């Protein structure tokens, strides 16, 4: 055995010892970086594949009886009706703030009568579907992941499977269908309330002539503007519900797993709404 007398070490010895330890560790360190990057990429690709399979299963089960209409309406009530208040609140303030911003901007070039159509167009095409999507992702998407995740960790999903009930069909299909239907309706409500807010601030507070406000609105707003928003909302509703339910089914472990799944559902739901919005916009502006 060879022992090092630590009392005989000086700074020179220590420097070289550190260097040799560092060089010995280097390949391991690099290997770890490559390994963790590799597993991150593999996990992400696997996750994407699982999500794609989950979505395909949804289409399969949604056309197969039994059709759980009551469950669908229950979910529609939960996602739609229970989100109305927060959607109206967001819509009203968005419309009012937009009216203020547009008014002072457009007044500089004497185009303050255009406040109505500018706000209305922004709401119809962009703000209403995106903001409603973000609200629903935060509220209903999180709730879906938490409900299904809790059912998974408490063996309720196993109980369904043992009884011979497909958990995907029973839990995911009504939620995804309800989300897909609820979001366009909520978007229309958001847009309506937003326009009302803009009208009140524009005409009653900022003094824009009411006749001019409506005349410009009717001249510059077209049905296509509303369709663009509704089409977007339809996709957002589908995606948010798919992500929420998928993360619910992916939960593992106990309460910590449910929290993690819920968090992922909200984060990915919101990110996906923004990313998909870009691609949908770039497509829809060409056809509508």
């Amino acid at each position, binding site marked *: 055995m060879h022992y090092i007398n630590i009392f005989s070490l000086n700074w020179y010895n220590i420097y070289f010892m550190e260097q040799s330890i560092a060089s010995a560790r280097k390949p391991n360190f690099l290997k770890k970086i490559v390994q963790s990057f590799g597993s991150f990429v593999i996990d992400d690709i696997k996750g994407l594949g699982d999500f794609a399979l989950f979505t395909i299963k949804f289409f399969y089960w949604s056309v197969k009886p039994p059709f759980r209409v009551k469950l669908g309406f229950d979910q529609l009530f939960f996602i739609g009706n229970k989100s109305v208040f927060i959607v109206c609140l967001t819509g009203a303030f968005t419309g009012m703030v937009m009216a203020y911003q547009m008014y002072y901007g457009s007044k500089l070039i004497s185009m303050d009568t255009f406040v109505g159509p500018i706000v209305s167009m922004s709401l119809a095409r962009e703000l209403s579907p995106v903001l409603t999507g973000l609200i629903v992702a935060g509220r209903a998407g999180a709730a879906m992941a938490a409900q299904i995740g809790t059912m998974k960790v408490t063996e*309720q999903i196993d109980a369904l499977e043992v009884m*011979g009930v497909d958990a995907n069909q029973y839990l995911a299909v009504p939620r995804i269908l309800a989300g897909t239907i609820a979001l366009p309706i909520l978007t229309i409500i958001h847009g309506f309330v937003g326009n009302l807010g803009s009208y009140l601030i524009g005409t009653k507070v900022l003094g824009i002539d009411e006749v001019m406000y409506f005349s410009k609105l009717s001249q510059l707003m077209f049905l296509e503007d509303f369709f663009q928003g509704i089409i977007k909302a339809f996709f957002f509703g589908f995606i948010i519900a798919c992500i929420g339910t998928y993360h619910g089914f992916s939960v593992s472990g106990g309460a910590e797993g449910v929290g993690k799944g819920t968090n992922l559902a909200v984060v990915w739901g919101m990110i996906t709404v923004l990313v998909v919005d870009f691609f949908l916009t770039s497509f829809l502006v060409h056809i509508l």
Partner: protein
Amino acid sequence: MENAVEVINLTKRFGEHTVLDNLNFNIVRGKITTILGFSGAGKSTLMKHILGLLKPTSGMLRVLDTDLSTLNRVGLREFRRNFGMLFQYAALFDSMTSFENVAFPLREFTKLNEAEIKDKGFKLLKSVGLEEISYHKLPSELSGGMRKRVGLARALALSPKIMLYDEPTTGLDPITTNMVNELIKDTTDAHKDIGLTSIIISHDVKATLKISDYVAFLDHGKIIEHRPVDEFLESKEPLVRRFLEL
């Protein structure tokens, strides 16, 4: 003796890890069989194979004279209606009341009308000894023992031919443990006419041996002992002896 479950050369591997290693044993119809073993012995994996939730790496399972490997996904799902299962923590649907939990399989799989479902649901809840006051309570308002009763009533709703009990007494106090054991025994006796087979997966040796007809001991994926309960108690197998003396 007629067998409810026949396990033939069953092997299950997860990657390199062998969980069930060439198992061969039968579960007798109409009797209570307990599968004992330490944690990680492969008990839950075996149970999932009996339910058709997992596919064997090799070997086969014949359940109620049906080779499970011949059934497709839909066939397996339908076949599972022959099973009732009482989960460790009852696994009641937490958004439904006790009655709704019991009514769930009846609404899903029978053509009974609401009045008949109500009648059958109440009868089932009564048969497991649940007081009427608890019929419309949510699972969160019930004690552990009450939840087990509701879970058992739900499992019995479709008149299963095989009842599976997953760790039925784990984590319960001695009085509730005794109550659950009696419930299992009474349920099996009450359904003797249809030949109800009960399979208990447990590591609670003292609690389950009192009510079992047969005991199988699983260790590291192998059945090291499988006998009628009185013979099992006399087993010379060192591991079984260690387990019995705990």
